[in-house]
């Protein structure tokens, strides 16, 4: 919609005080990196990157100069004459980014740009995208289903569910102070507990597991134990509710499946929500 490919039913889209709602996508000050990259298969890397300039009727010289600079920035200078089909997924991703950035857009739209890459490359590209973005200081709208990606890259996160905005805020706020049940459940993992009439939420990393003979109120039985590398996740059956607790391996004590345990929380991390 912001790129101009869909008509909004309602409302207005305003960029720098210009209402662009009814402006054709070819005239909008936005540039998009598509999920599929949408690189033109019949053009080489340089032709792809400079296509927008060609349409603008820039001189050949200016085009090549800007194109070279842009390819340098994404680290693909030596690939300028390659065909798109000869590039790897990560390289195509960078070409797509260069092609959008060369337009010097007011808003850069990234539509799940990393979802077609494998996990390792995704983390690397995530860093590169962030670096380039902060270097150029372009307002960027980044659509993703990957929470880690959203948390790691954003200054401001908008969480949507079925076309409705559920919360807007910094990654920290969204994670630590969810405004509603949807956000609490959707972002990260969370435990829902009740203290008599009072319901509250607590993240797994803020649960302390304690020996069964200590005197705290919450008790349960370890039913499963998942080794996660830096920590262990214990699944504890507490009055037929499954509680997840992430315990750092550094802590000297560990528990076995079937063992009765008690658990407690970091009080200041308890999340209360109004219904």
């Amino acid at each position, binding site marked *: 919609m912001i790129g101009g490919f869909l008509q909004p039913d309602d409302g207005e889209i305003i960029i720098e005080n210009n209402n662009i709602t009814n402006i054709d*996508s070819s*005239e*909008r000050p*936005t540039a*998009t990196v598509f999920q*599929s990259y*949408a690189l033109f*298969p019949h053009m080489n890397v340089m032709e792809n990157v400079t296509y927008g300039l060609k*349409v603008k009727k820039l001189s050949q010289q200016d085009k090549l100069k800007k194109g070279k600079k842009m390819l340098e920035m994404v680290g693909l200078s030596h690939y300028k004459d390659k065909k798109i089909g000869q590039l790897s997924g990560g390289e195509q991703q960078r070409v797509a980014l260069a*092609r959008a950035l060369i337009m010097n857009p007011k808003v850069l739209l990234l539509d799940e740009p990393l979802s077609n890459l494998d996990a390792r490359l995704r983390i690397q590209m995530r860093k590169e995208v962030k670096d380039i973005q902060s270097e150029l200081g372009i307002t960027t709208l980044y659509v993703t289903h990957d929470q880690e990606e959203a948390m790691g890259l954003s200054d401001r996160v908008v969480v949507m569910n079925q076309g409705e905005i559920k919360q807007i805020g910094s990654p920290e706020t969204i994670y630590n102070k969810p405004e509603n049940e949807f956000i609490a459940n959707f972002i990260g993992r969370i435990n829902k507990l009740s203290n008599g009439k009072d319901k509250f939420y607590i993240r797994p990393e803020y649960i302390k597991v304690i020996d069964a003979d200590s005197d705290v109120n919450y008790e349960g039985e370890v039913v499963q134990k998942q080794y996660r590398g830096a920590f262990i996740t214990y699944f504890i059956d507490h009055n037929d509710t499954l509680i997840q607790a992430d315990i750092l391996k550094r802590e000297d004590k560990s528990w076995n499946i079937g063992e009765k345990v008690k658990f407690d929380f970091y009080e200041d991390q308890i999340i209360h929500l109004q219904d």
Partner: protein
Amino acid sequence: MSDYNQKNSSLSSALDIFSYNFLYIFLAISILVFIFWPVVEVIIESFYFDESFSLEMYRNLFQRNFNLVTNSLFVAVLTTTLTIIFSTFVAIYTSFAGAKLKRFIFLVLLMTMVSPPFVSALAYIRLFGRRGFMTYGLFGVTLNTYGWQGIVAMQTLSNISLSALIIIGVISGIDKSYIMAAKDLGADTKEIVFKIIIPLAKPGIIVVALLSFVRSLADFGTPIIIGGGYRVLATQIYLNVIAYFNLPRAAAMSVLILIPAMFAFFVYRYYMENLKFSSSGFSVSDRFQNIFKLSGAVKYLITVFSCFFLTAILLQYFTILFTAVTTYSGGNLIFTLDHLRALDSTIMASFYRSIRYSLIAASAGSFIGLLLSYYIERSNLPGIKSIDLISTLPYIIPGTFFGIGYILAFRDYPLRLTGTAAIVLLNYIYRQMPLVIKTGSAVLQNVSQDLERAAKDLGAGRLTVIKDIVFPSLKPAFLVSFVNTFAVTMTSIGAVIFLIYPGGKVATVEMFDAIENGNYGLGAVMASMILLFTLIVSLTFVIFIMPDKKITESDKFKFIRGIFK
């Protein structure tokens, strides 16, 4: 962005939208004028009797010529049944054959697809006719083999190739794991063929049935040449136009054929929309062979049918070549070059004219059709759905119907085209429209729309997007459509036989005339020329001009499976 710039760019944007819409209107009008109007004209004409509106034509048809209708239906039903049985077996046989055998069968099928019409009929006469190589030559008998049996046999023979190719396409689209699963669960060949493959290929078989039925109803050439006294609607349509000049009567008969054809068309459309051809192509089915081999009684059944078909086809071509270089002299068969010498300058002129027409029709038709396919696939402009539907009409309406439509629509003001080369060319171009559009749509459906969005996003206007993005994407479709239209135009006869002007004949019409006049030798020479030339051009195109790796085997063969006469 300054104010001035904004105004300037919105002006160019408006101009862009205007040209984009104008192009669409132009295309839409051309479809209405050159497809819809002729069809409507035929229907209107059929209600004219003594210069006034009446149902007389139809009453007349049903009362006095009821046997024409029943004859047509009888032949069509028999032809369809036989075509289904043969083409299904041939398709299964080919699908599970080894790579070499498969290539050979494809070549045979390809050859029959680019054969001019009546080749079968001509071969039939030479083999089983009064002076047939088989009947008279071998056994010394003169049999009267003219009649419905010959018509059914020859129509079936010429229908099988296209039908088998369609079913092969469907079979190669079947998920191989179904067959593996069936095998894993202990199914034998019989089970797999009859309970897995045939049911899954059913949409293809239904399409084949409808096409064969309609093609049989519309075929006038075969019955005229080998029907003897057996008359069907299609032959009478032809005679009413060519010999009796009774256009209203011909129109009424054509409408009669159109009714089942239209019914078939809608069923066909329904199935074609839900029919997925394998995108991975025929090469994948080589692996098919490794997971499943025919065996047992079913294998023999399928092999016998397929070999019978292949023998018949090869015999047919052999007969044509043989006829081209032999003659009877004093009761003896001798080799001669007389028929080749009979190719005078008039006939050669017709042959060159055919080539010229085919090249023009192929370029213009592909260009117009592919542009249309872009609008159909990507835009939601008003009326586009109807244009899509109308442009598919020539796929199923009989060639003669379309020809009569052109006579009626363009005989007078405002578009008087009778007796020009233009009417012949336009007919060729718009007759192939459905195929071109389908090819374009198939390619566009595999091209992400994001490409066009990306170009727009980078500032390209609508027309620039078409030029820079859509046309390059459609290149494979253009090549396929070009070969297709070229081959069909070289070999078809149905509609143009009514439209050509004296001195403006095309090769297939010369061939038809020669056969009709009993000049079989010359007919065979013409048939061989048309066949060889078209085959060579098509193969050259496939092998040398489409070496692009992005064009898969299946794309290459799309053009054969799509050729309709």
